[in-house]
Protein backbone atom coordinates (compact mmCIF):
# COMPACT_ATOMS: atom_id res chain seq x y z
CA UNK A 1 0.00 0.00 0.00
CA UNK A 2 1.38 3.35 -1.02
CA UNK A 3 1.31 6.17 1.47
CA UNK A 4 -0.77 9.26 1.11
CA UNK A 5 1.56 12.12 1.94
CA UNK A 6 -0.60 15.04 0.86
CA UNK A 7 -4.23 15.06 1.93
CA UNK A 8 -6.57 17.81 0.81
CA UNK A 9 -9.86 17.73 2.70
CA UNK A 10 -12.87 19.81 1.78
CA UNK A 11 -10.71 22.74 0.67
CA UNK A 12 -12.77 25.86 0.06
CA UNK A 13 -11.25 28.98 -1.43
CA UNK A 14 -13.05 32.30 -1.65
CA UNK A 15 -12.53 36.00 -2.23
CA UNK A 16 -14.22 39.14 -0.98
CA UNK A 17 -15.30 40.29 2.47
CA UNK A 18 -16.57 37.68 4.95
CA UNK A 19 -20.12 38.99 4.68
CA UNK A 20 -20.31 38.39 0.92
CA UNK A 21 -17.84 35.66 0.06
CA UNK A 22 -17.43 34.58 -3.55
CA UNK A 23 -16.62 30.90 -3.53
CA UNK A 24 -13.94 30.05 -6.11
CA UNK A 25 -13.29 26.46 -5.07
CA UNK A 26 -15.97 24.54 -3.17
CA UNK A 27 -14.88 21.58 -1.10
CA UNK A 28 -12.02 19.90 -2.99
CA UNK A 29 -10.88 16.63 -1.46
CA UNK A 30 -7.90 14.81 -2.92
CA UNK A 31 -5.34 12.34 -1.62
CA UNK A 32 -1.96 12.31 -3.29
CA UNK A 33 0.15 9.19 -2.89
CA UNK A 34 3.88 8.89 -3.47
CA UNK A 35 4.63 8.74 -7.19
CA UNK A 36 0.98 9.17 -8.23
CA UNK A 37 0.21 11.34 -11.29
CA UNK A 38 -3.02 13.30 -11.05
CA UNK A 39 -4.58 15.56 -13.65
CA UNK A 40 -6.70 18.49 -12.55
CA UNK A 41 -8.81 19.48 -15.55
CA UNK A 42 -10.89 22.59 -15.85
CA UNK A 43 -11.57 25.64 -18.00
CA UNK A 44 -10.88 29.23 -17.02
CA UNK A 45 -12.59 30.11 -13.77
CA UNK A 46 -12.87 26.50 -12.64
CA UNK A 47 -10.59 27.10 -9.65
CA UNK A 48 -7.80 24.75 -10.73
CA UNK A 49 -5.02 27.29 -10.33
CA UNK A 50 -6.46 28.40 -6.98
CA UNK A 51 -6.31 24.78 -5.79
CA UNK A 52 -2.59 24.72 -6.56
CA UNK A 53 -2.09 28.13 -4.99
CA UNK A 54 -3.65 27.00 -1.71
CA UNK A 55 -1.38 23.96 -1.49
CA UNK A 56 1.81 26.04 -1.63
CA UNK A 57 0.39 29.12 0.07
CA UNK A 58 0.56 31.33 -3.01
CA UNK A 59 -2.89 32.77 -3.51
CA UNK A 60 -3.50 36.15 -5.09
CA UNK A 61 -4.26 39.05 -2.75
CA UNK A 62 -7.82 38.92 -1.48
CA UNK A 63 -8.22 35.21 -2.18
CA UNK A 64 -7.96 32.84 0.79
CA UNK A 65 -8.71 29.34 1.93
CA UNK A 66 -11.78 29.69 4.16
CA UNK A 67 -12.39 26.06 5.02
CA UNK A 68 -10.87 22.61 4.91
CA UNK A 69 -7.31 21.43 5.33
CA UNK A 70 -4.20 20.62 3.32
CA UNK A 71 -1.93 18.27 5.23
CA UNK A 72 1.58 17.24 4.25
CA UNK A 73 2.58 14.18 6.32
CA UNK A 74 -0.01 15.25 8.86
CA UNK A 75 1.30 18.84 9.09
CA UNK A 76 -1.33 21.45 8.29
CA UNK A 77 -0.15 23.75 5.48
CA UNK A 78 -3.06 26.18 5.63
CA UNK A 79 -2.23 28.94 8.06
CA UNK A 80 1.52 28.23 8.06
CA UNK A 81 3.71 31.30 8.31
CA UNK A 82 5.70 32.42 5.29
CA UNK A 83 8.90 31.17 6.95
CA UNK A 84 7.43 27.73 7.56
CA UNK A 85 6.04 27.58 4.03
CA UNK A 86 9.47 28.34 2.60
CA UNK A 87 10.75 25.05 3.98
CA UNK A 88 8.00 23.25 2.08
CA UNK A 89 7.89 25.21 -1.14
CA UNK A 90 10.65 24.19 -3.52
CA UNK A 91 11.81 21.49 -1.09
CA UNK A 92 8.85 19.13 -0.74
CA UNK A 93 6.51 20.67 -3.28
CA UNK A 94 7.80 22.39 -6.41
CA UNK A 95 5.77 24.32 -8.92
CA UNK A 96 6.28 24.66 -12.68
CA UNK A 97 4.33 27.58 -14.06
CA UNK A 98 2.75 28.20 -17.42
CA UNK A 99 5.06 30.91 -18.66
CA UNK A 100 8.62 30.00 -17.75
CA UNK A 101 10.03 33.22 -19.14
CA UNK A 102 7.98 35.29 -16.72
CA UNK A 103 8.51 32.99 -13.73
CA UNK A 104 12.31 33.18 -14.03
CA UNK A 105 14.26 36.18 -12.78
CA UNK A 106 15.30 38.14 -15.90
CA UNK A 107 18.51 39.60 -14.40
CA UNK A 108 20.10 36.43 -12.97
CA UNK A 109 21.77 33.77 -15.15
CA UNK A 110 19.62 30.63 -15.23
CA UNK A 111 22.31 28.33 -13.83
CA UNK A 112 22.52 30.43 -10.68
CA UNK A 113 18.74 30.49 -10.32
CA UNK A 114 18.64 26.69 -10.40
CA UNK A 115 21.66 26.39 -8.11
CA UNK A 116 20.19 28.80 -5.55
CA UNK A 117 17.29 26.40 -4.95
CA UNK A 118 19.80 23.64 -4.25
CA UNK A 119 21.84 25.83 -1.91
CA UNK A 120 18.85 26.96 0.13
CA UNK A 121 17.10 23.62 0.42
CA UNK A 122 19.92 21.09 0.35
CA UNK A 123 22.70 23.18 1.91
CA UNK A 124 25.00 22.58 -1.06
CA UNK A 125 28.04 24.80 -1.54
CA UNK A 126 28.02 27.26 -4.38
CA UNK A 127 30.24 25.02 -6.52
CA UNK A 128 28.31 21.84 -5.74
CA UNK A 129 24.99 23.53 -6.48
CA UNK A 130 26.25 24.90 -9.79
CA UNK A 131 27.62 21.53 -10.79
CA UNK A 132 24.29 19.93 -10.02
CA UNK A 133 22.41 22.69 -11.91
CA UNK A 134 24.53 22.19 -15.03
CA UNK A 135 24.10 18.44 -14.80
CA UNK A 136 20.32 18.80 -14.49
CA UNK A 137 20.18 21.18 -17.44
CA UNK A 138 21.90 18.50 -19.49
CA UNK A 139 19.43 15.86 -18.29
CA UNK A 140 16.61 18.22 -19.32
CA UNK A 141 17.94 18.16 -22.88
CA UNK A 142 19.46 21.63 -22.96
CA UNK A 143 22.45 21.46 -25.32
CA UNK A 144 25.83 22.72 -24.08
CA UNK A 145 24.62 23.17 -20.48
CA UNK A 146 27.90 24.56 -19.10
CA UNK A 147 27.77 27.55 -21.42
CA UNK A 148 23.97 27.91 -21.31
CA UNK A 149 23.98 28.05 -17.50
CA UNK A 150 25.58 31.48 -17.82
CA UNK A 151 22.87 32.78 -20.12
CA UNK A 152 19.92 34.90 -19.00
CA UNK A 153 16.28 33.81 -19.40
CA UNK A 154 15.65 36.05 -22.44
CA UNK A 155 18.30 34.10 -24.33
CA UNK A 156 16.15 30.97 -24.16
CA UNK A 157 13.21 29.97 -26.34
CA UNK A 158 9.91 29.17 -24.60
CA UNK A 159 10.51 25.43 -24.66
CA UNK A 160 14.10 25.71 -23.41
CA UNK A 161 13.07 28.14 -20.66
CA UNK A 162 10.44 25.65 -19.53
CA UNK A 163 13.19 23.02 -19.27
CA UNK A 164 15.14 25.41 -17.06
CA UNK A 165 12.16 25.76 -14.75
CA UNK A 166 11.74 21.99 -14.65
CA UNK A 167 15.39 21.67 -13.65
CA UNK A 168 14.77 24.27 -10.94
CA UNK A 169 11.75 22.31 -9.71
CA UNK A 170 13.73 19.06 -9.58
CA UNK A 171 16.99 20.10 -7.97
CA UNK A 172 15.77 19.68 -4.38
CA UNK A 173 14.14 16.29 -5.09
CA UNK A 174 10.58 17.35 -4.25
CA UNK A 175 7.97 14.73 -3.44
CA UNK A 176 5.30 16.57 -5.38
CA UNK A 177 5.60 18.58 -8.58
CA UNK A 178 2.70 20.84 -9.41
CA UNK A 179 2.73 21.72 -13.10
CA UNK A 180 0.25 24.48 -13.89
CA UNK A 181 -0.46 24.48 -17.66
CA UNK A 182 3.24 23.78 -18.29
CA UNK A 183 2.95 23.62 -22.08
CA UNK A 184 0.20 26.12 -22.88
CA UNK A 185 1.53 28.60 -25.41
CA UNK A 186 4.26 26.27 -26.69
CA UNK A 187 4.25 24.83 -30.20
CA UNK A 188 2.97 21.30 -30.68
CA UNK A 189 6.35 19.64 -31.23
CA UNK A 190 7.98 21.60 -28.38
CA UNK A 191 4.98 20.81 -26.18
CA UNK A 192 5.52 17.10 -26.70
CA UNK A 193 9.21 17.42 -25.82
CA UNK A 194 8.49 19.33 -22.60
CA UNK A 195 5.79 16.85 -21.53
CA UNK A 196 8.21 14.03 -22.25
CA UNK A 197 10.81 15.72 -20.05
CA UNK A 198 8.31 16.10 -17.19
CA UNK A 199 7.10 12.51 -17.57
CA UNK A 200 10.66 11.16 -17.49
CA UNK A 201 11.65 13.29 -14.52
CA UNK A 202 8.64 12.15 -12.54
CA UNK A 203 9.28 8.52 -13.44
CA UNK A 204 12.97 8.70 -12.52
CA UNK A 205 12.68 10.66 -9.28
CA UNK A 206 9.50 8.98 -8.06
CA UNK A 207 7.90 12.36 -7.38
CA UNK A 208 4.14 12.68 -7.50
CA UNK A 209 2.68 14.96 -10.18
CA UNK A 210 -0.29 17.27 -10.02
CA UNK A 211 -0.80 18.35 -13.62
CA UNK A 212 -3.18 21.25 -14.05
CA UNK A 213 -4.50 21.72 -17.56
CA UNK A 214 -7.49 22.61 -19.67
CA UNK A 215 -6.30 20.11 -22.27
CA UNK A 216 -7.75 16.63 -21.81
CA UNK A 217 -5.40 15.17 -24.38
CA UNK A 218 -2.34 16.34 -22.45
CA UNK A 219 -3.79 15.06 -19.19
CA UNK A 220 -4.70 11.72 -20.74
CA UNK A 221 -1.15 11.06 -21.85
CA UNK A 222 0.45 12.07 -18.55
CA UNK A 223 -1.66 10.93 -15.59
CA UNK A 224 -3.10 8.00 -13.68
CA UNK A 225 -6.21 9.76 -12.43
CA UNK A 226 -8.30 12.74 -13.47
CA UNK A 227 -10.18 15.26 -11.37
CA UNK A 228 -12.65 17.34 -13.41
CA UNK A 229 -13.41 20.77 -11.96
CA UNK A 230 -16.21 23.03 -13.15
CA UNK A 231 -16.91 26.42 -11.59
CA UNK A 232 -15.05 25.39 -8.44
CA UNK A 233 -16.83 22.06 -8.00
CA UNK A 234 -15.44 18.57 -8.63
CA UNK A 235 -17.81 16.91 -11.08
CA UNK A 236 -15.87 13.73 -11.71
CA UNK A 237 -12.87 11.86 -10.34
CA UNK A 238 -11.52 8.55 -11.51
CA UNK A 239 -8.75 6.58 -13.25
CA UNK A 240 -7.64 8.44 -16.40
CA UNK A 241 -8.20 5.62 -18.88
CA UNK A 242 -11.69 4.86 -17.59
CA UNK A 243 -12.76 8.50 -17.46
CA UNK A 244 -11.60 9.12 -21.03
CA UNK A 245 -13.16 5.92 -22.39
CA UNK A 246 -16.42 6.21 -20.49
CA UNK A 247 -16.96 9.63 -18.93
CA UNK A 248 -19.81 9.68 -16.42
CA UNK A 249 -20.52 13.36 -15.82
CA UNK A 250 -22.39 15.05 -18.66
CA UNK A 251 -19.76 17.82 -18.56
CA UNK A 252 -16.86 15.38 -18.92
CA UNK A 253 -18.77 13.67 -21.70
CA UNK A 254 -19.08 16.98 -23.53
CA UNK A 255 -15.39 17.73 -23.02
CA UNK A 256 -14.27 14.31 -24.22
CA UNK A 257 -16.60 14.55 -27.24
CA UNK A 258 -15.16 17.92 -28.17
CA UNK A 259 -11.64 16.49 -28.39
CA UNK A 260 -12.44 13.05 -29.79
CA UNK A 261 -14.50 13.50 -32.92
CA UNK A 262 -16.64 10.97 -34.65
CA UNK A 263 -16.81 11.42 -38.42
CA UNK A 264 -15.50 14.95 -38.52
CA UNK A 265 -18.57 16.34 -36.73
CA UNK A 266 -18.08 19.42 -34.61
CA UNK A 267 -19.21 18.57 -31.10
CA UNK A 268 -19.61 21.23 -28.47
CA UNK A 269 -21.23 22.20 -25.18
CA UNK A 270 -23.75 25.04 -25.59
CA UNK A 271 -23.89 27.97 -23.19
CA UNK A 272 -21.19 29.77 -21.24
CA UNK A 273 -18.97 29.13 -18.26
CA UNK A 274 -20.30 30.78 -15.07
CA UNK A 275 -18.20 33.53 -13.52
CA UNK A 276 -16.39 32.38 -10.36
CA UNK A 277 -18.65 32.71 -7.33
CA UNK A 278 -21.90 33.18 -9.24
CA UNK A 279 -23.32 29.65 -9.04
CA UNK A 280 -26.11 29.31 -6.43
CA UNK A 281 -24.96 27.01 -3.62
CA UNK A 282 -27.95 24.72 -3.98
CA UNK A 283 -27.60 24.23 -7.75
CA UNK A 284 -25.41 21.96 -9.81
CA UNK A 285 -22.86 24.34 -11.39
CA UNK A 286 -23.29 22.71 -14.80
CA UNK A 287 -27.11 22.81 -14.72
CA UNK A 288 -27.43 25.75 -17.13
CA UNK A 289 -25.55 23.88 -19.89
CA UNK A 290 -26.41 20.27 -19.11
CA UNK A 291 -28.30 18.08 -21.61
CA UNK A 292 -29.62 15.89 -18.76
CA UNK A 293 -30.79 18.72 -16.51
CA UNK A 294 -33.89 18.19 -14.35
CA UNK A 295 -35.64 20.41 -11.80
CA UNK A 296 -33.76 18.67 -9.00
CA UNK A 297 -30.40 19.86 -10.39
CA UNK A 298 -31.37 23.46 -9.69
CA UNK A 299 -32.63 22.76 -6.18
CA UNK A 300 -30.06 20.41 -4.78
CA UNK A 301 -26.36 20.38 -5.56
CA UNK A 302 -25.31 16.79 -6.31
CA UNK A 303 -22.61 15.42 -4.03
CA UNK A 304 -19.62 13.49 -5.31
CA UNK A 305 -20.51 9.83 -4.91
CA UNK A 306 -18.79 6.60 -5.84
CA UNK A 307 -20.91 5.29 -8.67
CA UNK A 308 -18.60 2.38 -9.41
CA UNK A 309 -15.42 1.27 -7.68
CA UNK A 310 -12.92 4.13 -8.08
CA UNK A 311 -15.34 6.17 -10.21
CA UNK A 312 -16.78 9.23 -8.49
CA UNK A 313 -19.26 11.58 -10.09
CA UNK A 314 -21.42 14.47 -8.89
CA UNK A 315 -24.65 14.12 -10.87
CA UNK A 316 -28.25 13.26 -10.04
CA UNK A 317 -28.93 11.80 -13.45
CA UNK A 318 -26.33 9.14 -14.12
CA UNK A 319 -26.74 5.58 -12.95
CA UNK A 320 -24.26 2.78 -12.50
Amino acid at each position, binding site marked *: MVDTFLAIEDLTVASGPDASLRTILAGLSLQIEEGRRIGLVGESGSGKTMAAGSIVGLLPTGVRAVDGSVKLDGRELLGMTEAQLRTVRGREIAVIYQNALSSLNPVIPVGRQIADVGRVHLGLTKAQAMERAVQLMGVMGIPDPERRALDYPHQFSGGMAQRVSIAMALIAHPRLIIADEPTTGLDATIQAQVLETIAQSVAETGAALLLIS*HDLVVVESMTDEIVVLYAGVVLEHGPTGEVMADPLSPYTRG*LVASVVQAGGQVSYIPGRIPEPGTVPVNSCPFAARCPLVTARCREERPVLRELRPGRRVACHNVEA
Partner: protein
Amino acid sequence: MSAVTTQVPTQVPALSVRGVRKEFVIRGKAGSGRKKVVPVNDVSFDIMPGRTMALVGESGSGKSTLSRLIMRLYRPEQGSIAVNGVEIQDLGRRQLRALRNEFQMVFQNPLLSFDPAMTIGDSIAEVLRLAGPLSRAERVQRIGELLTDVGLSPAFARLRPRGVSGGELQRAALARAISANPKLLVLDEPTSALDVSIQGQVLALLERLQRERGIAYLFATHDLRVVRMTSHDVMVVYRGQVMEKASTAEIFEGARHPYTLSLFAAEGVTSPDVATAPGVDECVFGAADCPEGGHLVELTPTHIVRCWREYAGPGKPGA
Protein backbone atom coordinates in the same frame (compact mmCIF):
# COMPACT_ATOMS: atom_id res chain seq x y z
CA MET B 1 -18.23 19.65 -45.40
CA SER B 2 -21.44 18.02 -46.61
CA ALA B 3 -21.74 16.28 -49.99
CA VAL B 4 -19.00 16.69 -52.55
CA THR B 5 -19.92 19.42 -54.98
CA THR B 6 -18.73 19.30 -58.54
CA GLN B 7 -16.36 22.14 -59.20
CA VAL B 8 -17.40 24.23 -62.18
CA PRO B 9 -14.14 24.68 -64.08
CA THR B 10 -14.82 28.32 -64.85
CA GLN B 11 -15.38 29.22 -61.19
CA VAL B 12 -13.00 31.91 -59.99
CA PRO B 13 -11.02 31.07 -56.84
CA ALA B 14 -11.93 33.18 -53.83
CA LEU B 15 -8.20 33.40 -53.22
CA SER B 16 -5.38 32.65 -55.61
CA VAL B 17 -1.77 32.93 -54.39
CA ARG B 18 1.02 32.44 -56.94
CA GLY B 19 4.73 32.21 -56.21
CA VAL B 20 4.61 34.67 -53.32
CA ARG B 21 7.82 35.57 -51.54
CA LYS B 22 8.30 38.01 -48.69
CA GLU B 23 11.68 38.94 -47.24
CA PHE B 24 12.67 40.91 -44.20
CA VAL B 25 16.16 42.07 -43.35
CA ILE B 26 16.83 41.94 -39.65
CA ARG B 27 19.85 43.04 -37.67
CA GLY B 28 21.37 40.00 -35.98
CA LYS B 29 23.50 39.86 -32.85
CA ALA B 30 26.31 42.37 -32.52
CA GLY B 31 28.98 41.74 -35.11
CA SER B 32 27.00 39.28 -37.18
CA GLY B 33 25.65 41.97 -39.48
CA ARG B 34 22.33 41.93 -41.25
CA LYS B 35 20.48 38.77 -41.89
CA LYS B 36 17.80 38.04 -44.45
CA VAL B 37 14.78 36.06 -43.38
CA VAL B 38 12.17 34.78 -45.78
CA PRO B 39 8.97 34.08 -43.85
CA VAL B 40 7.07 33.33 -47.06
CA ASN B 41 9.06 31.58 -49.78
CA ASP B 42 7.49 30.72 -53.15
CA VAL B 43 4.05 29.83 -51.83
CA SER B 44 1.20 29.01 -54.26
CA PHE B 45 -2.34 27.81 -53.60
CA ASP B 46 -6.00 28.43 -54.47
CA ILE B 47 -9.10 28.40 -52.30
CA MET B 48 -12.42 27.96 -54.10
CA PRO B 49 -15.60 29.63 -52.80
CA GLY B 50 -17.17 27.79 -49.87
CA ARG B 51 -13.99 25.84 -49.12
CA THR B 52 -11.65 25.89 -46.13
CA MET B 53 -7.88 25.64 -46.43
CA ALA B 54 -6.09 24.98 -43.16
CA LEU B 55 -2.70 26.64 -42.82
CA VAL B 56 -0.72 24.56 -40.38
CA GLY B 57 2.66 25.37 -38.92
CA GLU B 58 4.43 26.34 -35.73
CA SER B 59 5.30 29.84 -34.63
CA GLY B 60 7.84 31.28 -37.02
CA SER B 61 6.58 29.19 -39.91
CA GLY B 62 5.23 32.22 -41.77
CA LYS B 63 1.50 31.77 -41.11
CA SER B 64 1.00 35.30 -39.87
CA THR B 65 3.13 36.89 -42.59
CA LEU B 66 1.15 35.04 -45.24
CA SER B 67 -2.12 36.18 -43.65
CA ARG B 68 -0.88 39.77 -43.61
CA LEU B 69 0.20 39.56 -47.24
CA ILE B 70 -3.28 38.43 -48.20
CA MET B 71 -4.81 41.29 -46.21
CA ARG B 72 -2.31 43.55 -48.01
CA LEU B 73 -0.82 44.74 -44.78
CA TYR B 74 2.48 43.80 -46.45
CA ARG B 75 3.45 43.66 -50.11
CA PRO B 76 5.27 40.64 -51.50
CA GLU B 77 8.71 40.85 -53.16
CA GLN B 78 7.56 38.38 -55.78
CA GLY B 79 4.40 36.70 -56.92
CA SER B 80 0.77 37.64 -57.07
CA ILE B 81 -2.28 37.45 -54.84
CA ALA B 82 -5.78 37.63 -56.33
CA VAL B 83 -9.02 37.85 -54.38
CA ASN B 84 -12.00 36.83 -56.52
CA GLY B 85 -9.85 37.18 -59.61
CA VAL B 86 -8.66 40.72 -58.80
CA GLU B 87 -4.93 41.18 -58.22
CA ILE B 88 -4.56 43.12 -55.00
CA GLN B 89 -0.88 43.95 -54.72
CA ASP B 90 -0.89 46.89 -57.12
CA LEU B 91 -4.19 48.45 -56.11
CA GLY B 92 -4.18 52.02 -54.84
CA ARG B 93 -5.67 52.97 -51.49
CA ARG B 94 -9.03 53.89 -52.95
CA GLN B 95 -9.32 50.79 -55.10
CA LEU B 96 -8.26 48.62 -52.18
CA ARG B 97 -10.86 50.24 -49.96
CA ALA B 98 -13.54 49.47 -52.52
CA LEU B 99 -12.53 45.81 -52.35
CA ARG B 100 -12.02 45.65 -48.56
CA ASN B 101 -15.47 44.22 -47.96
CA GLU B 102 -14.54 41.13 -49.97
CA PHE B 103 -11.82 39.91 -47.62
CA GLN B 104 -11.77 40.23 -43.88
CA MET B 105 -9.65 38.82 -41.09
CA VAL B 106 -10.53 37.38 -37.68
CA PHE B 107 -7.76 37.43 -35.10
CA GLN B 108 -6.84 35.05 -32.31
CA ASN B 109 -7.65 37.22 -29.31
CA PRO B 110 -10.91 39.16 -29.67
CA LEU B 111 -10.07 41.32 -26.66
CA LEU B 112 -7.14 42.71 -28.62
CA SER B 113 -8.95 43.01 -31.94
CA PHE B 114 -11.78 45.17 -30.55
CA ASP B 115 -11.27 48.78 -29.54
CA PRO B 116 -11.89 48.66 -25.77
CA ALA B 117 -13.35 52.16 -25.72
CA MET B 118 -15.96 51.52 -28.40
CA THR B 119 -19.20 49.60 -28.04
CA ILE B 120 -19.34 46.32 -29.93
CA GLY B 121 -22.05 47.84 -32.15
CA ASP B 122 -19.83 50.78 -33.14
CA SER B 123 -16.97 48.41 -33.96
CA ILE B 124 -19.24 46.37 -36.21
CA ALA B 125 -20.57 49.57 -37.83
CA GLU B 126 -17.04 50.53 -38.94
CA VAL B 127 -16.76 47.39 -41.07
CA LEU B 128 -20.42 47.41 -42.10
CA ARG B 129 -19.82 50.81 -43.71
CA LEU B 130 -17.55 49.08 -46.27
CA ALA B 131 -20.56 47.28 -47.72
CA GLY B 132 -22.27 50.53 -48.72
CA PRO B 133 -24.14 53.48 -47.24
CA LEU B 134 -26.95 52.80 -44.78
CA SER B 135 -29.18 55.09 -42.76
CA ARG B 136 -28.72 55.11 -38.98
CA ALA B 137 -31.88 53.07 -38.44
CA GLU B 138 -30.90 50.59 -41.14
CA ARG B 139 -27.47 50.24 -39.58
CA VAL B 140 -28.84 49.52 -36.12
CA GLN B 141 -31.21 46.96 -37.55
CA ARG B 142 -28.48 45.29 -39.63
CA ILE B 143 -26.13 45.06 -36.61
CA GLY B 144 -28.95 43.46 -34.63
CA GLU B 145 -29.48 40.90 -37.40
CA LEU B 146 -25.77 40.13 -37.60
CA LEU B 147 -25.51 39.60 -33.84
CA THR B 148 -28.57 37.35 -33.92
CA ASP B 149 -27.02 35.42 -36.79
CA VAL B 150 -23.95 34.56 -34.70
CA GLY B 151 -26.15 33.53 -31.76
CA LEU B 152 -25.94 36.70 -29.68
CA SER B 153 -28.66 39.07 -28.54
CA PRO B 154 -28.94 42.43 -30.39
CA ALA B 155 -28.41 44.01 -26.95
CA PHE B 156 -24.69 43.11 -27.28
CA ALA B 157 -24.32 46.10 -29.62
CA ARG B 158 -24.43 48.43 -26.63
CA LEU B 159 -21.86 46.50 -24.56
CA ARG B 160 -18.12 47.04 -24.49
CA PRO B 161 -15.60 44.23 -25.12
CA ARG B 162 -14.62 43.91 -21.43
CA GLY B 163 -18.22 43.21 -20.46
CA VAL B 164 -18.62 39.94 -22.37
CA SER B 165 -16.93 36.53 -22.34
CA GLY B 166 -14.20 35.51 -24.78
CA GLY B 167 -16.46 33.15 -26.71
CA GLU B 168 -19.16 35.79 -27.05
CA LEU B 169 -16.67 38.42 -28.14
CA GLN B 170 -15.22 36.08 -30.77
CA ARG B 171 -18.77 35.60 -32.09
CA ALA B 172 -19.10 39.37 -32.25
CA ALA B 173 -15.78 39.47 -34.14
CA LEU B 174 -17.28 37.06 -36.65
CA ALA B 175 -20.42 39.20 -36.92
CA ARG B 176 -18.14 42.15 -37.65
CA ALA B 177 -16.12 40.21 -40.23
CA ILE B 178 -19.18 38.97 -42.14
CA SER B 179 -21.02 42.32 -41.92
CA ALA B 180 -19.58 43.48 -45.25
CA ASN B 181 -20.47 40.19 -47.01
CA PRO B 182 -16.89 38.98 -47.58
CA LYS B 183 -16.03 36.24 -50.06
CA LEU B 184 -12.93 35.31 -48.08
CA LEU B 185 -12.17 35.21 -44.37
CA VAL B 186 -8.62 34.86 -43.10
CA LEU B 187 -8.92 33.24 -39.66
CA ASP B 188 -5.79 33.40 -37.50
CA GLU B 189 -6.13 30.83 -34.70
CA PRO B 190 -9.72 31.99 -34.06
CA THR B 191 -10.40 29.48 -31.29
CA SER B 192 -7.09 29.01 -29.53
CA ALA B 193 -7.70 31.79 -27.00
CA LEU B 194 -11.07 30.27 -26.05
CA ASP B 195 -12.00 27.69 -23.43
CA VAL B 196 -12.31 24.11 -24.68
CA SER B 197 -16.07 23.86 -24.24
CA ILE B 198 -16.50 27.18 -26.08
CA GLN B 199 -14.16 26.42 -29.03
CA GLY B 200 -16.63 23.97 -30.54
CA GLN B 201 -19.39 26.60 -30.48
CA VAL B 202 -17.31 28.98 -32.58
CA LEU B 203 -16.25 26.20 -34.98
CA ALA B 204 -19.88 25.14 -35.47
CA LEU B 205 -20.80 28.76 -36.14
CA LEU B 206 -18.02 29.07 -38.74
CA GLU B 207 -19.27 25.93 -40.44
CA ARG B 208 -22.85 27.25 -40.61
CA LEU B 209 -21.81 30.68 -41.91
CA GLN B 210 -19.77 29.02 -44.64
CA ARG B 211 -22.64 26.75 -45.63
CA GLU B 212 -25.13 29.62 -45.77
CA ARG B 213 -22.92 32.25 -47.38
CA GLY B 214 -20.37 30.30 -49.41
CA ILE B 215 -17.45 32.12 -47.77
CA ALA B 216 -13.95 30.71 -48.37
CA TYR B 217 -11.75 30.36 -45.26
CA LEU B 218 -8.01 30.41 -44.88
CA PHE B 219 -7.73 28.93 -41.40
CA ALA B 220 -4.35 29.33 -39.72
CA THR B 221 -4.04 26.93 -36.79
CA HIS B 222 -1.63 24.61 -35.07
CA ASP B 223 -4.40 22.43 -33.68
CA LEU B 224 -4.82 19.32 -35.82
CA ARG B 225 -8.11 18.42 -34.14
CA VAL B 226 -9.51 21.72 -35.38
CA VAL B 227 -8.13 21.04 -38.86
CA ARG B 228 -9.88 17.73 -39.06
CA MET B 229 -13.19 19.23 -37.97
CA THR B 230 -13.19 22.26 -40.21
CA SER B 231 -11.02 21.98 -43.29
CA HIS B 232 -11.34 20.59 -46.80
CA ASP B 233 -7.67 21.02 -47.61
CA VAL B 234 -4.51 21.38 -45.58
CA MET B 235 -1.27 23.20 -46.30
CA VAL B 236 1.66 22.56 -43.96
CA VAL B 237 4.28 25.29 -43.88
CA TYR B 238 7.69 25.35 -42.27
CA ARG B 239 10.09 28.31 -42.31
CA GLY B 240 8.15 29.95 -45.09
CA GLN B 241 7.98 26.97 -47.42
CA VAL B 242 5.10 24.66 -48.22
CA MET B 243 6.12 21.20 -46.99
CA GLU B 244 2.96 19.37 -47.94
CA LYS B 245 -0.45 20.22 -49.31
CA ALA B 246 -3.37 17.82 -49.67
CA SER B 247 -7.01 17.21 -49.00
CA THR B 248 -7.78 16.72 -45.30
CA ALA B 249 -8.45 13.02 -45.85
CA GLU B 250 -5.14 12.54 -47.68
CA ILE B 251 -3.19 14.33 -44.96
CA PHE B 252 -4.80 12.41 -42.10
CA GLU B 253 -4.56 9.06 -43.83
CA GLY B 254 -1.33 9.41 -45.75
CA ALA B 255 0.83 12.34 -44.72
CA ARG B 256 4.29 11.87 -46.25
CA HIS B 257 6.60 14.67 -45.24
CA PRO B 258 8.60 14.05 -42.08
CA TYR B 259 7.65 17.47 -40.77
CA THR B 260 3.93 16.77 -41.20
CA LEU B 261 4.42 13.39 -39.57
CA SER B 262 6.24 15.04 -36.67
CA LEU B 263 3.32 17.40 -36.15
CA PHE B 264 0.97 14.44 -36.08
CA ALA B 265 3.05 12.43 -33.70
CA ALA B 266 4.40 15.63 -32.12
CA GLU B 267 7.50 13.69 -31.22
CA GLY B 268 10.47 12.10 -32.90
CA VAL B 269 11.57 14.72 -35.37
CA THR B 270 13.01 17.77 -33.70
CA SER B 271 12.58 21.09 -35.42
CA PRO B 272 15.91 22.21 -36.80
CA ASP B 273 17.46 24.91 -34.63
CA VAL B 274 17.23 28.33 -36.26
CA ALA B 275 20.91 28.98 -35.46
CA THR B 276 22.15 25.95 -37.39
CA ALA B 277 19.47 25.92 -40.08
CA PRO B 278 20.60 26.18 -43.69
CA GLY B 279 20.32 29.30 -45.80
CA VAL B 280 17.00 30.66 -46.90
CA ASP B 281 16.78 29.04 -50.32
CA GLU B 282 18.13 25.69 -49.28
CA CYS B 283 15.99 22.80 -48.24
CA VAL B 284 15.26 23.26 -44.56
CA PHE B 285 15.33 19.55 -43.92
CA GLY B 286 18.07 18.71 -46.37
CA ALA B 287 21.62 17.72 -45.67
CA ALA B 288 24.53 20.13 -45.96
CA ASP B 289 25.36 18.64 -49.36
CA CYS B 290 21.89 19.37 -50.72
CA PRO B 291 22.31 22.99 -51.68
CA GLU B 292 19.31 23.48 -53.91
CA GLY B 293 15.82 23.97 -52.54
CA GLY B 294 13.74 20.84 -52.31
CA HIS B 295 11.23 20.55 -55.10
CA LEU B 296 7.55 19.92 -54.72
CA VAL B 297 6.57 16.45 -55.88
CA GLU B 298 3.02 15.73 -57.00
CA LEU B 299 1.77 12.45 -55.52
CA THR B 300 -1.84 12.86 -56.64
CA PRO B 301 -3.49 15.87 -58.34
CA THR B 302 -4.44 17.15 -54.87
CA HIS B 303 -1.46 15.95 -52.85
CA ILE B 304 1.93 17.61 -53.19
CA VAL B 305 4.91 17.17 -50.94
CA ARG B 306 8.39 18.65 -50.80
CA CYS B 307 11.14 16.15 -51.51
CA TRP B 308 13.40 15.10 -48.72
CA ARG B 309 16.58 13.24 -49.41
CA GLU B 310 17.63 12.44 -45.91
CA TYR B 311 14.42 10.71 -44.99
CA ALA B 312 14.67 6.96 -45.53
CA GLY B 313 11.39 5.86 -44.01
CA PRO B 314 8.34 4.43 -45.73
CA GLY B 315 6.49 6.57 -48.21
CA LYS B 316 9.53 8.26 -49.69
CA PRO B 317 8.79 9.23 -53.29
CA GLY B 318 10.34 6.71 -55.61
CA ALA B 319 11.09 4.29 -52.77
